[in-house]
């Protein structure tokens, strides 16, 4: 049995528009914030996991070191779509767990404010002559001709499929999920949007891909998040205050899709999430009923619904009843996305898989201010990177 791993320091920048800060400014702010929060410096860090998908230039970790501290440690630049941040954290945690280092750093950053559709946002012109290309011998771009490549459309189909299988879904139900997250964000000063939206406003907003209207889609924004992880033996040597605020990583899991019929036709975000959740609950020796709060990957309102079920917050097929019972509201049985979620807090892709852990840690430390979930002791953070990768972390308050 290897020793426990702890989050010693963690930081999330304000999410939103940062026209006067570039990718490195945001990442530096997150890293220096996490180091200060943990009471350590770059000198203590033995390994770094770093993620940035849209910045263009490679080697985000090395570029960042050149701003915040070059000590010659290994950097792992990782990419796993929207699960990039969680992947960076897992790299640092695995290195600590393996005993190679006793302190590691993970960071994710993105500049996305003002971006439109990320996938399916542009389509190449048809060629002058039809020539078969690629693995399906396509003579022309397929987006819009053979289904949709857009994320709002893909995740709309995922939510609609759940409704077809179990019943009870409607345009209004999905909009109500979004209403919850926009309402939650009013208490989060770091959220991109902190504006309550009525059901009517949400349903009457611009339709992107039925049933997802604009406020039911994740908000493109700028932001970064970083975390410092340490081994149990290192933590024991630190101050009482550092030990008090440390958050235990009770489970750290990353999964991909096991093959199933149709999984290469429409992404199946269910099976790998269910597998990750099952492994995480087992590793942490906790059950869904023990969770005081959950930050899950609501990249679209239609996605949040299916993950109630995938994370086993409800019985199989019971996600609609779970939502209608009021359970995922902040005063409900299992508060979900009290940060405002991706729909309102925002979704700077590579930052998201650490930002959701920051949110959970903030509550476990009792530092959530107006949005504090009182007495929170155990929380779960989940991300999905389409392709697919699923990260699930279970976090526990220091005893």
């Amino acid at each position, binding site marked *: 049995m290897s020793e426990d791993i702890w989050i010693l320091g963690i930081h999330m920048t304000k999410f939103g528009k940062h026209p006067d800060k570039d990718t490195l400014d945001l990442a530096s702010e997150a890293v220096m914030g996490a180091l200060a929060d943990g009471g350590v410096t770059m000198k203590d860090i033995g390994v770094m996991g770093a993620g940035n998908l849209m910045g263009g230039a490679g080697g985000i970790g090395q570029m960042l070191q050149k701003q915040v501290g070059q000590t010659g440690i290994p950097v792992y630049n990782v990419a796993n779509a929207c699960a990039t941040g969680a992947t960076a954290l897992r790299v640092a945690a695995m290195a600590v767990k393996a005993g190679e280092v006793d302190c590691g750093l993970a960071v994710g950053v993105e500049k996305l404010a003002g971006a439109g559709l990320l996938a399916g946002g542009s*389509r190449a*012109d048809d060629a002058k*002559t039809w020539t078969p290309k690629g693995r399906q*011998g*396509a003579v022309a771009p397929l987006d*819009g001709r053979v*289904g949709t490549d*857009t994320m709002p459309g893909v995740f709309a*189909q995922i939510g609609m499929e759940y409704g077809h299988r179990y019943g009870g879904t409607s345009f209004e139900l999905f909009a109500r999920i979004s209403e919850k997250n926009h309402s939650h964000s009013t208490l989060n000063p770091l959220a991109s949007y902190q504006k309550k939206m009525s059901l009517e406003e949400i349903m009457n907003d611009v339709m992107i891909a039925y049933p997802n209207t604009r406020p039911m889609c994740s908000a493109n924004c700028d932001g970064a998040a970083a975390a410092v992880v340490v081994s149990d033996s290192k933590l024991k040597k630190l101050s009482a205050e550092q030990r008090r605020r440390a958050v235990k990583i009770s489970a750290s899991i990353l999964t991909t899709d096991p093959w199933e019929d149709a999984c290469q036709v429409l992404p199946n975000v269910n099976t790998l999430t269910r597998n990750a959740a099952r492994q995480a609950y087992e590793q942490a020796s906790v059950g869904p009923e023990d969770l005081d709060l959950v930050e899950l990957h609501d990249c679209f309102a239609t996605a949040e619904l299916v993950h109630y079920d995938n994370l086993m917050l409800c019985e199989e097929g019971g996600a609609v009843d779970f939502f209608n019972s009021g359970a995922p509201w902040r005063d409900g049985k299992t508060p979900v996305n009290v940060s405002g979620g991706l729909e309102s807090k925002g979704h700077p892709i590579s930052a998201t898989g650490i930002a959701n852990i920051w949110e959970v840690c903030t509550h476990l430390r009792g530092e959530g201010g107006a949005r504090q979930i009182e007495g929170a002791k155990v929380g779960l953070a989940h991300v999905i990177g389409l392709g697919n990768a699923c990260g699930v972390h279970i976090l526990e308050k220091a005893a």
Partner: protein
Amino acid sequence: MADQIPLVDYLVLGDSPHLVARECEQCGSRYFGRRNACAACFGTEFKTVRIPDEGTLETFTIVAQAAPGVPVPFVSGVVDVDGTAVRANVVNVEPSPDKVTMGMKLRLTTFPIGVDEAGVEAISFGYEPVG
């Protein structure tokens, strides 16, 4: 009709246009497009099988915002054809949640999408409501 080409290589044109899948000889898993190996059983032998023309709609969305050049709104969906899932547009139906319904019966249809500089017409496919 010689100067036609299918949009994708798993669409077979002719008197009775249809789709074909690559089926793993070892475990029967089906795929569209070129394969290196079977993702389910790692086998490397495949045969080509014909996919029936009729199926049911398992899920859909009505895409209202898409890349410039993509006509919207359109219906994107997944059709279950006798146990094989096919990604396609649902066509010849009003793109409205009142008209497109889960489980609706659909049939393969083909249509031209344009003629290139060499005079070759590309043929695409979609699924349309039956009856």
